């Protein structure tokens, strides 16, 4: 079964919940309109369509748009050697969707990482702790509104709380920041 056939089967099973599969660079993606159904879709993809290997789960911060979060699942079938990407949107107010840990155990650390980096919670996850940052760290550093240089915290004794000395450092450009002078923080006006 090719990835497109699997995507069409998902579409046939879940109807309007699943958007039309799209193809880009030979990869099939489809969207799930209701994030609450991700567990059912994941279970069906594994049991019936044979996607037994969860490659990765990741999240995208669509800052300034609604819904803010996109959670991206990369699935693979080891026997059919096909891959499928499932994307689902989560609003900022909710910031929660069901965990797929009972379907693939590798989801454990991926979901913890997303919670740690972006602050999206996974309901049903038995051990949703921070994983890369330390316990008690107050921010979600991969959010687009978190500055690259970091933020000071007023919590005592949590490592150093001053921003990392990256701001204004070499080779730090700002995405979409107009012309090259605007994107290059090393450039200073002569008056300054």
């Amino acid at each position, binding site marked *: 079964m090719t990835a497109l056939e699997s995507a069409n089967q998902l579409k046939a099973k879940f109807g309007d919940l699943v958007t039309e599969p799209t193809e880009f660079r030979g990869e099939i993606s489809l969207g799930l309109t209701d994030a609450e159904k991700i567990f059912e879709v994941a279970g069906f993809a594994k049991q019936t369509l044979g996607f037994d290997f969860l490659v990765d789960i990741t999240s995208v911060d669509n800052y300034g748009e609604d819904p803010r979060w996109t959670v991206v699942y*990369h699935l693979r079938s080891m026997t059919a050697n096909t891959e499928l990407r499932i994307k689902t949107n989560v609003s900022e107010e909710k910031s929660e969707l069901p965990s797929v840990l009972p379907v693939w155990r590798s989801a454990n650390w991926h979901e913890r990482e997303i919670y740690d980096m972006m602050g999206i919670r996974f309901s049903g996850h038995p051990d949703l702790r921070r994983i890369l940052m330390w316990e008690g760290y107050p921010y979600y550093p991969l959010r687009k509104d978190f500055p690259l240089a970091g933020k000071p915290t007023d919590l005592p004794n949590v490592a150093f709380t001053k921003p990392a000395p990256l701001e204004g450092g070499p080779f*730090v450009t700002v995405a979409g920041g107009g012309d090259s002078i605007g994107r290059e923080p090393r450039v200073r006006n002569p008056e300054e």
Partner: protein
Amino acid sequence: MSSVQEIEIRDSAARAAQAADELQDVQGERMVLNMGPSHPATHGVLRIVLELDGEVITKADPDVGYLHRGDEKIAENMTYTQFIPYTDRLDYLAPLANNVAYTLAVEKLLGVHDKLTPRCQYIRVMCCELARISAHLLGLGAFAMDTGAVTVFLLTFTEREKIYNLAEAASGARLTTSYTRIGGLLRDVPPNWCDQVRQFLKEFAVALAEAETLLTRNRIWVDRLRDLGVVSKEMAIDYGLSGPNLRGSGVEYDLRKNQPYLCYKDLQFDIPVGSVGDCYDRYLVRMEEMRQSMRILAQCVDKIPGGGANASKEPVNIPDGKITLPSKQKVLSSMEELIHQFMLVTEGVNCPPGEVYFGHENPKGELGFYINSRGGGVPYRLKIRAPSFVNLSILGELMPGCMISDVPVILGSLDFVMGESDR
């Protein structure tokens, strides 16, 4: 005369239960032991919180993140080309392979991954295989040293030194190679490089055989590795293991074969798989992978387009001014190339909007890059799927029921790098 011995291999939960049964009358208080983050057997800065009953582990909680540098955040703030040096620091035992993996992902986004020049493809494959040998050698040396066989470490590091010299000849740096560029390479390899690789292969075959005689049938080594840390096929897939750890459990899956990229289709090599999935199988798979890498390298030095010295002047970069930098001569003498160079350096390679995932068979497993682009020269979101991170998540399942002296063996057999795991 031959005899058959029945061996029962039980999973970790059964062994934990058995250990608890046997120790019923001496069961006392559990002790929590904090191993790492600064411990020689944790290969970097992994911390494991072990709960012990005597010497038997009852619970293990791996704690990662001590080497977190925010690579994904940094990537969102610079052009695609500027991020290449950061990939050196992911799996710092195989920087060349990381460079190749990352640039292939960006090239896939650009839609030019199948338009790479043949010479570039061959050089990249050779880089990947040298990196694989180098990473496996370090993994093997450190693994053996943790279990008490220090000689192997000295042997493998002598050979790694030669690979560093090869990397230096090609890229100018031993560790922070940054050798690839989007659409090609920093530069062609020096004229005598292929001969140096040939010479290395000759010497390495001897050293590998020597390392093997020290370990493979060594009674102590076998006793410590066999039937330890058994990962079944289903468990390996369920936990998302990749690379030698997956194949050690008997799953024949290698991205070089299953989703061929570069010129791997034209090369002959085999995929070694284990049968039991214990530490010994993972060791054997890595040994055989090094031999297969030698086979690939030997084919590459013979088949590389243009030959070692590139007498026919085969290009290594895609001849497209919007992707690869033009030659300095052209930049200084022609207006169009000057504009291209200026745009590439200031704005970066202009990528189309869209999203791609590219998984690369790295020495540690599947190194994947998910790029979410909204157009322009900067990724909107770049996710690194680090094989070590995923491979480590199985520790909590693998360790209960083992003795504390088994911990370095299991860690060594999983062969992880924290730079990549923590990003």
